[in-house]
């Protein structure tokens, strides 16, 4: 039985294909269309999933959409009733899109995908809950979903047992932790539904001075983690912005202009909303543990991508184990919807366990060489072991920044060693170099480390796996040093791995095992053998505003447009200095809008 899950129309559209309950392929549409957070029907991702399975659309038994459109529309109408007459601008913008497209999901999917079979619908948070529990390693687990909003729910607590899941309680719109975080993202001049992770990255530069003020005026937080927002300060229920003048007045500053300088106030606001978020998540988690008495917790929804909060759940929460699916945001709803249909609706037993994140397209060495030959790009083909040794040598001896393209593309927003930019984590200069000259992104943003699983505890305060880069922990052997920060030189924590140590001494770690990704694991091992250090900077293979590369062509173009030194495509190694100049008749910087 083939079941295709789809998420789309809002942000990060995606498709995932199950065959007899096993995941065959899953991918984000943006990787194919090269449009960041592409919300459209995931036509290209679906085509890829079908090709990977070697089937046609007629072979799909069920197509499952990740939310219930009519219930969402009901929420929209009730919100307009409640906010009349202030919601006219929002009404004028949203209703045409709903009338044209979002209300006619069956017809739109048939038009775009040519699907004429059985169409099923899962509720938004059911999809999230299913994506969190059903592919998890647990037979029984407590479930927590936290995001902006689905139909009405913005947060749910539940329990998963065997092939069933039950949602117990929910917090409803407009009271939403995800939207609270997005409101601060907006207020701090970043893009909503896109740059929330920048607020998380900015938080360690500030002091949570506004924590009490937020809890006093904006959030009525209860001991059980439930909360209500004081909607006097927010505009997302009626307007086209997230916050209103009352919010700006409360904090005494206007909304920060995008790309303008961040000052102390902005760092402190980021620190404050991050602390509030962590407090809410921890209270909900404690309450959920008290209610269920279970030892395993699974999480999904956009807030579950907040790896700083996840790190605190692991360290301070009462649950013994935590599992977060790599695509915890809305894209993961495609997987959740398909699994929900297979197990909960069709009552099929669970057998699939997700133990890696590599569910996208792969390209053989022959395909890579055909592309490079057609492009007349000079390269050298190595044997596998030789390629690994040579890459490790370049990373160490030449301090090269390496574009690394190996095997199937990652599922989820993080590069995990299949489409990555790598550099030596011991070299402090690599932080600035990769941020400014390669990624062209804000200098304050930290880099994540990838480390051999068995050596992770030697370098990080981490007692478990973190294969999807969704846990933040402290780096070991921290020292206080004068560090250059966006606010000038300040006393901050650093370590012998300065390029991946954030200013508060933390790091967003990816642990790597051979079973998860053999080439990446062997590269880390080769680097360790040369240097005695099993840790590399691992950042996404893209420039700011660009989706992570998918094909050898995307990788080659990204390599040529930036100051990367070396590109490794399978067993082919390309040197920047050998490449012919890239001639393009457009400015690629204009193609990728800043995120």
């Amino acid at each position, binding site marked *: 039985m083939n079941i295709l899950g789809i998420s789309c129309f809002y942000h990060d559209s995606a498709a995932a294909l199950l065959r007899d309950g096993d995941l065959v392929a899953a991918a984000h549409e943006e990787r194919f269309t090269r449009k960041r957070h592409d919300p459209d029907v995931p036509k290209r991702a679906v085509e890829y999933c079908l090709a990977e399975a070697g089937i046609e659309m007629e072979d799909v038994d069920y197509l*499952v959409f990740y939310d*219930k*459109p*009519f*219930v969402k529309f*009901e929420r929209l*109408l*009730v*919100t*307009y*009733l*409640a*906010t*009349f*007459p202030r919601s*006219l601008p929002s*009404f*004028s913008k949203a*209703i*045409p899109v709903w009338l044209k497209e979002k209300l006619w*999901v*069956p017809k739109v999917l048939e038009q775009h995908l040519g699907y004429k079979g*059985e*169409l*099923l*619908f*899962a509720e938004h948070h*059911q999809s999230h809950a299913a994506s969190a529990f059903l592919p998890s390693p647990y037979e029984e687990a407590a479930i927590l979903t936290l995001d902006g909003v689905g139909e009405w*729910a913005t947060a*749910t*607590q*539940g329990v998963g047992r065997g092939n069933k899941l*039950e*949602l*117990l*309680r*929910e*917090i*409803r*719109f*407009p*009271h939403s932790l995800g939207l609270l975080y997005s409101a601060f993202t907006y207020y701090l001049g970043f893009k909503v539904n896109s740059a929330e992770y920048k607020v998380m990255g900015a938080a360690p530069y500030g002091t949570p001075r506004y924590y009490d003020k937020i809890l006093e005026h904006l959030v*009525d937080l*209860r001991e*059980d983690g*439930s*909360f*209500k927002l*004081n*909607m006097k300060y927010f505009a997302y*229920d009626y307007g086209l912005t997230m916050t209103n003048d009352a919010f700006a007045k409360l904090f005494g500053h206007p909304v920060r202009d995008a790309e303008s300088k961040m000052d102390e106030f902005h760092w402190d606001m980021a620190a404050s909303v991050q602390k509030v978020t962590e407090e809410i998540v921890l209270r909900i988690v404690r309450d959920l543990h008290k209610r269920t008495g279970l030892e395993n917790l699974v999480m999904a929804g956009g807030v579950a991508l907040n790896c700083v909060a996840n790190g605190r759940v692991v360290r301070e929460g009462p649950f013994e184990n935590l599992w977060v699916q790599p695509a915890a945001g809305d894209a993961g709803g495609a997987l959740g919807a398909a699994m*929900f*249909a297979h197990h*909960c*609706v*069709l009552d099929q037993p669970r057998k699939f366990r997700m133990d890696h994140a590599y569910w996208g397209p792969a390209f053989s060495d022959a395909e890579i060489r055909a592309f490079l030959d057609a492009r007349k790009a000079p390269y050298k083909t190595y044997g596998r072991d030789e390629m690994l040794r040579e890459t490790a040598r370049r990373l160490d001896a030449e301090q090269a920044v390496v574009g690394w393209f190996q095997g199937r593309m990652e599922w989820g927003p993080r590069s995990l060693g299949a489409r990555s930019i790598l550099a030596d984590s011991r070299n402090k200069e690599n932080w600035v170099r990769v941020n400014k000259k390669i990624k062209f992104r804000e200098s304050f943003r930290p880099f994540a480390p990838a480390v051999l699983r068995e050596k992770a505890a030697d370098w990080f305060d981490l007692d478990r796996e973190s294969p999807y880069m969704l846990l933040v922990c402290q780096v070991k052997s921290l020292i206080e040093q004068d560090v250059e920060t966006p606010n000038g030189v300040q006393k901050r924590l650093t370590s012998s791995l300065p390029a991946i140590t954030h200013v508060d001494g933390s790091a967003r770690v990816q642990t790597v095992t051979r079973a998860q990704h053999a080439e990446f694991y062997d590269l880390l091992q080769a680097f360790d053998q040369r240097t005695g250090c099993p840790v590399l900077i691992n950042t996404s293979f893209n420039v700011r505003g660009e989706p992570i590369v998918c094909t050898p062509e995307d990788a080659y173009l990204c390599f040529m447009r930036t100051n990367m030194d070396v590109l490794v495509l399978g067993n082919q190694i390309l040197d920047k200095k050998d490449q012919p100049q890239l001639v393009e008749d457009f400015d690629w910087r204009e193609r990728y809008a800043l995120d």
Partner: protein
Amino acid sequence: MIEAGPKPFYRRLYEGWLVIAGHFGEVQTTVILFFSYVFAIGPAALVMRRKDLLHKKGLGAGDTAWNDADSTMPDLERAKRLF
């Protein structure tokens, strides 16, 4: 490769008309939406103005913001519905 010649006059006229019609359409849509909002949403909103439709009212001491979730067991008929 066949080079495209200049577009005939009637074609350019038609394309120009489409641009103008597009603007008319935008104005028309805005007007229709405005009237829908005022005359459909408006009266219903006035009738319900005392109701706390979005539960914005603050919590009392000891209250919780958690609500019971729908715990109906999923089935195929229900999954086929858009609601």
